[in-house]
């Protein structure tokens, strides 16, 4: 079907009105996440089959309380609805409202109604309204508001069929506006209507109110509007207050007439009773930290099995590919480049799925906004926001899902700071690196009788990451200018039983986005790193086989020869040459070119450090475990001093370096995806590397 005969339907509504649940019910799995043209806002759209056989494209616009945007996400709503030339301009609008909280929800409805777009009003969560003992006269409300009304219960799916049916019928555009704006600014409205050839007063009025923000107007047009406003004495803020108050006056009358509340107003609701407990100074934090521990443990523990399964299957598949393809570049590229990269992408899915299952659960149930309420004061002190808590803590398992979870922070500045500092939190990929190095230089002994010294060092490294995150956030708070004034005016929605379908769709959507968008970059970097580590352009590399044969002697077994060969090849590859080139730069940290190679290859992911070290030190694949590597590292001599290479100074310097450096291409890729550009991932990498370098330098000098 050509896209021209598909009607476009936009879903508009307040946050917490159940809009997304409704969207999921209308489209099912038939949805995609993309971008709105020209802006950095995610666009969720999908297709819905209507009873008359046609297919409608449903666009889920970001939730907003009014047509006056407060965040960049909300801005897209007026960008689309005020610009009939916009590629996403809808043929019809579904305004979704929370039936149990009609007064506030109807404000947005009346504004959109006055733009003259055909619309239908959905009273969602009608079951909650009944529970609250609200009797709504749907017929009276429909007449008073001048719109077709469909009551729905997005939990049971009641009313969805009626809504689809309503969408097939021609929806009448109301002739008279709900609230006539004209008297507030007659001259300005008339002048803009003539200038831009508009029919609705409210559209003209919106041009006056929002001209600076409307992206579809050019500078000349904006100037013209500014001049008209100037000539007629139009002031944005007071007129806007007057408009909103005027609308509410009408809405209040209508709601009071058609909605009867038969509940005892003094009786506490269930939500209020739960709130007493979850925001309690003691129980509140106890519950919150229990929830966090549960999430953290789940990401750590439950993800391990599926992750091993994914890695194992790909390794097996890779072995199979190696078996059927002739030895050579193609086989190596496919297995060590592409498949290794693919494994690096897919392996994160279990962690992403688990984290988002929890986040969706917390959001759906209504608990999330209480956690934000509890933590806001503490987090604000360091330039973060109550909503930064979950991403930061999840970052201790893995920064990838954590950064994706910053989505619900509305303030761009707060969100950016959270994204920026989250990779400092010690993630699980740092653990193998820490484990080898701690085992190497920290003796296994008891401190004060109860503490294990090795454990204490590990804890100190985690603390170091946390302090770096908090400290950096504080610095960024001072440097970054706030683009818009940030509000913390947030609804605490009533508690709800989560919808499993929504949770499932969130997991599916987040995993898909990660694989498709960050995956491309991860595979590309993986291929580049493979090329660097497997090719060389010097004679040594070209004659590797002969040279190694000579080195190991005739009596060496085939395995010894191959282990020595791969070590030799890595040393003389491009990555090896880079390792030697950067040696002067990392010498002050106590590193040699061998560590240099590991630093370069482990940019793919921190744990690659272990594998690279074992290749460089010619440890056969079968002995690739921590103990063997540790033993080999212990024997390594420093050519200058004659003493051991891996002194405590070098090991601590390395640990600190890995605690702070970016060293993770997947994080880089996800920051690119979440900030929609290379600016922030590059600044972040430079900053983290600088912090790592300086700290490692100081550490090395303290211990040596």
């Amino acid at each position, binding site marked *: 079907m050509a896209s021209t005969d598909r009607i476009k339907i936009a879903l508009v509504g307040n946050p917490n009105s159940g809009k997304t649940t409704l969207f999921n019910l209308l489209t099912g799995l038939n949805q995609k996440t993309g971008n709105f043209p020209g802006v950095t806002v995610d666009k969720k759209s999908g297709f819905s089959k209507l009873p008359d056989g046609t297919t409608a494209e449903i666009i889920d616009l970001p939730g907003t*309380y009014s047509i*006056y945007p407060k965040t960049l996400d909300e801005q897209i709503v007026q960008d689309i609805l005020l610009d009939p030339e916009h590629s996403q301009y809808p043929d019809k609008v579904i305004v979704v409202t929370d039936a149990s909280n009609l*007064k506030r929800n109807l404000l947005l409805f009346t504004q959109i109604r006055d733009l003259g777009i055909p619309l239908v009003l959905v009273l969602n969560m009608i079951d909650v309204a009944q529970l609250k003992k609200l009797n709504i006269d749907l017929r009276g409300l429909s007449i008073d508001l001048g719109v077709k009304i469909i009551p729905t219960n997005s939990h049971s799916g009641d009313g969805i069929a009626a809504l689809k049916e309503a969408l097939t019928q021609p929806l009448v555009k109301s002739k008279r506006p709900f609230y006539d704006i004209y008297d507030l600014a007659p001259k300005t409205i008339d002048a803009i209507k003539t200038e831009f050839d508009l029919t609705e007063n409210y559209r003209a009025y919106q041009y006056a109110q929002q001209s600076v923000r409307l992206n579809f107007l050019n500078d000349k047009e904006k100037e013209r509007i500014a001049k008209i406003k100037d000539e007629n004495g139009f002031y944005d803020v007071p007129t*806007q207050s007057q408009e909103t108050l005027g609308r509410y006056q009408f809405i209040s009358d209508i709601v009071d007439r058609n909605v009867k509340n038969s509940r005892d107003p003094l009786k506490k609701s269930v939500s209020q009773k739960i709130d007493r407990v979850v925001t309690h100074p003691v129980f509140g*934090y106890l519950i919150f930290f229990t929830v966090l521990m549960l999430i953290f443990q789940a990401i750590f523990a439950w993800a391990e099995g599926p992750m091993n399964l994914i890695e194992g299957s790909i390794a097996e598949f890779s072995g199979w590919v190696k078996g059927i393809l002739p030895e050579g570049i193609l086989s190596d590229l496919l297995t060590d480049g592409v498949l290794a990269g693919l494994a690096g992408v897919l392996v994160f899915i279990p962690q992403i799925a688990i984290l988002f299952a929890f986040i969706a659960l917390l959001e759906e149930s209504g608990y999330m906004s209480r956690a934000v*309420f509890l933590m806001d004061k503490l987090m604000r002190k360091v330039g973060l926001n109550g909503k930064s808590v979950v991403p930061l803590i999840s970052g201790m398992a893995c920064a990838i899902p954590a950064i994706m979870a910053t989505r619900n922070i509305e303030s761009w500045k707060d969100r950016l700071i959270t994204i920026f500092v989250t990779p400092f939190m010690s993630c699980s990929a740092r653990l193998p690196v820490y484990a080898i190095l701690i085992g190497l230089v920290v003796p296994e002994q008891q401190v004060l009788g109860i503490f294990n010294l090795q454990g204490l060092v590990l804890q100190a490294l985690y603390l170091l990451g946390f302090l770096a995150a908090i400290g950096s956030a504080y610095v960024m708070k001072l440097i970054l200018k706030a683009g818009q004034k940030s509000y*913390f*005016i*947030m609804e605490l929605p009533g508690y709800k039983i989560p919808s499993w379908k929504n949770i499932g769709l969130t997991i599916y959507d987040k995993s898909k986005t990660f694989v498709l968008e960050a995956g491309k970059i991860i595979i590309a970097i993986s291929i580049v790193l493979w090329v660097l580590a497997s090719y060389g352009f010097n004679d040594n590399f070209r004659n590797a086989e002969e040279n190694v044969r000579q080195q190991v002697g005739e009596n060496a077994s085939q395995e010894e020869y191959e282990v020595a060969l791969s070590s030799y090849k890595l040393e003389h590859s491009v990555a090896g040459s880079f390792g030697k080139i950067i040696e002067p730069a990392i010498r002050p940290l106590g590193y040699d070119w061998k560590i240099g190679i590991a630093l370069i290859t482990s940019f793919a992911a921190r744990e690659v450090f272990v594998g690279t070290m074992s290749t460089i030190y010619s440890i056969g694949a079968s002995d690739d475990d921590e103990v063997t590597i540790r033993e080999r590292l212990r024997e390594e001599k420093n050519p200058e001093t004659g003493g051991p290479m891996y002194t405590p100074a070098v090991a601590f310097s390395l640990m600190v370096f890995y605690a702070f450096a970016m060293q993770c291409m997947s994080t880089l890729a996800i920051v690119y995806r979440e900030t929609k550009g290379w600016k922030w991932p590059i600044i972040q990498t430079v900053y983290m590397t600088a912090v790592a370098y300086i700290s490692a330098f100081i550490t090395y000098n303290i211990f040596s």
Partner: protein
Amino acid sequence: MRSLAELKKNERGIINGFKDDSLSVKLIEMGCLPGTEVSVDLIAPFGDPIAIGVSGYCLSLRKDEAACIMIED
């Protein structure tokens, strides 16, 4: 005249007006209309933010934001 930030927990009051123009627009949109009754339902453990009952639902806001809402005597 007192501001909303000065009300104690469970105390009620009628909104009289706003101190800050640009903030008032947002607050009015959220249903904090002059003449409407508000009640302080929750106060976060460190005294900030607070949650108020207004226009039939629960709204949380920071103390400095609440200080912009004036309450009738």
